[in-house]
């Protein structure tokens, strides 16, 4: 057993876990943050994506101990109170989800995609091909990705506007 100290959704936490515990299990089992899901055993599906120090990470691929000292954001920490993150709003408005199981990981990956492209100075103009390529690590069985791609492109525009306003 080890004690892992980290910050999750802005809150400092200290958790005693077995050394073999994965970050996703620390979040789900110890912190009851069940929005982060497990969809496979092979780091393929992306249902477990969270942000670790601002970068999208498959939390089934990281030991909890490796996240010690990190700043972790999960789907539960993305909205500002009642105000949805533009990516969350875009998924709802574009019907980018059906059963909702892949959605948290999909949204966390998508936020990271848009952030990276904005910071690379591409002017927030992600195109469909780039979004499809970047979403390769997140599997959805319901939507055929059509509306997910629309949602990400929509959110990229909204996030650019929000960024400019700040």
């Amino acid at each position, binding site marked *: 057993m080890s004690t892992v100290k980290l910050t999750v959704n802005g809150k400092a936490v200290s958790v005693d876990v077995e050394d073999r515990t994965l970050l996703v299990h620390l979040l789900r089992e110890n912190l009851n943050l069940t929005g982060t*899901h497990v969809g496979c055993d092979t780091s393929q599906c992306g249902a477990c994506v969270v942000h670790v120090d601002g970068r999208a990470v498959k939390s089934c691929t990281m030991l909890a101990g490796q996240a010690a000292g990190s700043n972790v954001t999960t789907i539960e920490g993305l909205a500002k109170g009642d105000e949805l993150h533009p990516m969350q709003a875009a998924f709802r408005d574009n019907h980018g989800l059906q059963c*909702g199981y892949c*959605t948290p990981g999909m949204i966390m990956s998508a936020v990271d995609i848009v952030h990276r492209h904005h910071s690379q100075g591409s002017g927030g103009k992600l195109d469909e091909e780039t979004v499809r390529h970047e979403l390769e690590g997140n599997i959805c069985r319901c939507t055929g990705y059509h509306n997910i791609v629309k949602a990400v492109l929509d959110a990229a525009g909204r996030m650019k506007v929000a960024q400019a306003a700040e």
Partner: protein
Amino acid sequence: MGVEGIGARVVRKEDRRFITGQGRYVDDVKMVGMSYAHFIRSPHAHAKVKGINSTEAMKMPGVIAVLTGQQIVDDKVGNLICGWAITSKDGSPMKMGAWPAMAPETVRFVGQAVAVVIAETKNQAKDAAEAVVVDYEELPAVADVRAAIKSGAPQLHPEAPGNIVYDWHIGDEAAVGDAFSKAANVVTLELTNNRLVPNAMEPRAAVAHYDQAEEHYTLYTTSQNPHVARLVLSAFYNIAPEHKLRVIAPDVGGGFGSKIYIYPEEMVALWASKKVNRPVKWTGDRSEAFLTDAHGRDHVSKAEMAFDKDNKILGLRVKTHANFGAYMSLFSSAVPTYLYATLLSGQYVIPAIYAEVIGVYTNTTPVDAYRGAGRPEASYLLERMMETAARQLKVDPTELRKKNFINQFPYQTPVIMAYDIGDFHASIDAAMKAIDYAGFAARKAKAKADGKLRGIGVSCYIEACGIAPSKAVGSLGAGVGLWESAEIRVNPVGTIEVLPGSHSHGQGHETTFCQIIAERLGVPISQVSIVHGDTDKVQFGMGTYGSRSIAVGGAAIVKAMEKVEAKAKKIAAHALEASESDIVIENGEFKVTGTDKAIALPMVALAAYTAHNLPDGMEPGLKETAFYDPTNFTFPAGAYICELEVDPGTGKTSFVNFVAADDFGRLINPMIVEGQVHGGLAQGIGQALLEGAVYDDTGQLVTASFMDYTMPRADDLPSFQLSHTTTLCPGNPLGVKGCGEAGAIGASAAVINAITDAIGNNKLEMPATPDRVWHAIHG
């Protein structure tokens, strides 16, 4: 009526919890004192279980129990059932082997459970499972359907000699023989419909709790039909009588058919919760999903079609071998028979049809309904046949289809189905216009100049949904009725709860069903909520599958609403001192037509519950129920056209365009309908290009993870161009047909027809991987 009624693109009410991480799935459920189950599964496809030694495992930390198949048999837990009896040609009933929840003596597929470890933590259960020693005596195995029916093949069940479950037929063999004897041309086709793994993103899970004082069980489970689960667990598996068993399916993360069935793991969790007197949780991992969720498709077929000199179809003869896997799953027997061969008329006038279906056991995971269930297999066969015929007869494939389309409705096919309505010309014309079919030849020529092989492929599907008229399916062997129920509760403050018997696993029922209420009463959908997925709350329900929730369940909601409205009108008329026949409902008010007299719904509801001033003899309250049994299936139909390019150097396919023109009757929420089509198309395209469950000769599933089984990803698929044509279904009060499976039914043939058009070679099986396409081009 109103901006949130029928036809409105309302964003989904359920989305807020899913996008904020507050969805509640079975694995999110925790109980005080909860223990964890881990199954010990056979690594062999066929073996005798000679002994199970759990002595060392029981000494390991946190282990509560190791339970075996023999114990579950000793406790008289029932074997798994198949709920649809099929009779062979010779009049004999289908031949089924026994399927205990955990194998006491013989395992027949890789992944079949033989024992379960219950421990304090999941990791402790997994660790202890490693220490359980199972002594297997390996037996010869067979995975391929063609190999399984050869003489000398390994035999799975003594009850089914030759591994044959049934040898069934439908149609008129003599009439087909006559048709072929008169034919000017005969087209033949042999094809395989590849085995698929459903892979809902949420793995199956169960949390079972036994209340010793009340002798009552609660099961949280990943189910498309919690009442059916309770019925089967109670009546057939002897877990508990129905009034002592509550089944709750909370948010369900996709199903596609795979969560219809009541699997061994849920049975064992319930049984074990009493054995150890602790709540028991089991959550499958993805490997377990690959090995134990019922697979789909897996047909090998030979078909022949006869044409007259004018290219009119005279007859169709089909022989199909269907692979059932090692055991008969709940609805497996109906899939390659009444859900498949009854759709072999497609959109065409085919005067004579004869189909034979041989159901076969193999040492593989059981096969059952997966999105479309039999109808994709029928559609794929028929639409590849039409394309093959057009090429052989040297006519345009759209012209050949149009020449043979059914134009008069109702239309009785030679294989049971009576199509109520449709307009097949409208959908193919819409699809051809959308893809600029006329301009294809020029595009193909241009692509050729660029070194690419361009192809176009058409698929005109029809399916039977709205499953199903109970009397009809009963006469065909179904063990259940397939009606649906609904309850409407108008609360004293005028808010409304709808309790449908269906259960959403992604379809958006919490929005669509509210729109039906909004349409009828003119209230905002925020005043309506849906309560579903809990046998203690909902009166009864047959569940969600076969695109039935709106066509059957929606109709039940309408029937219950009619009763609510009739009573509310009586109350309103009494309060307004008007005639009941003069009362109309508008914008949430009951009005006396032609006057300004009105009473709002909340006041009517309050009057119903205070009961101070009700019409004489009226019962208090405003709550009604309905059970709706459809009179016929519904028949969604449409045309899909795929245009793509093949790189002859690599065999890789790239989409140029994919258009869909569907007729689903009336659309309640077009946004949700489009989403259903997108998802169905992805699964149909996945089958055509990417997906395939592969077994080796020893019965090992080679494709048992997302590393090995190619799930469609965002960059494998195009954006889709959708449109709708509409003929309203005359058989139900909403005029709806259902839309959940269409994409998966129609898409595969369009893709393969496009590739075979591009490469000029019809010898291509699904999935059409670059390797297969390259070999088809280069030999």
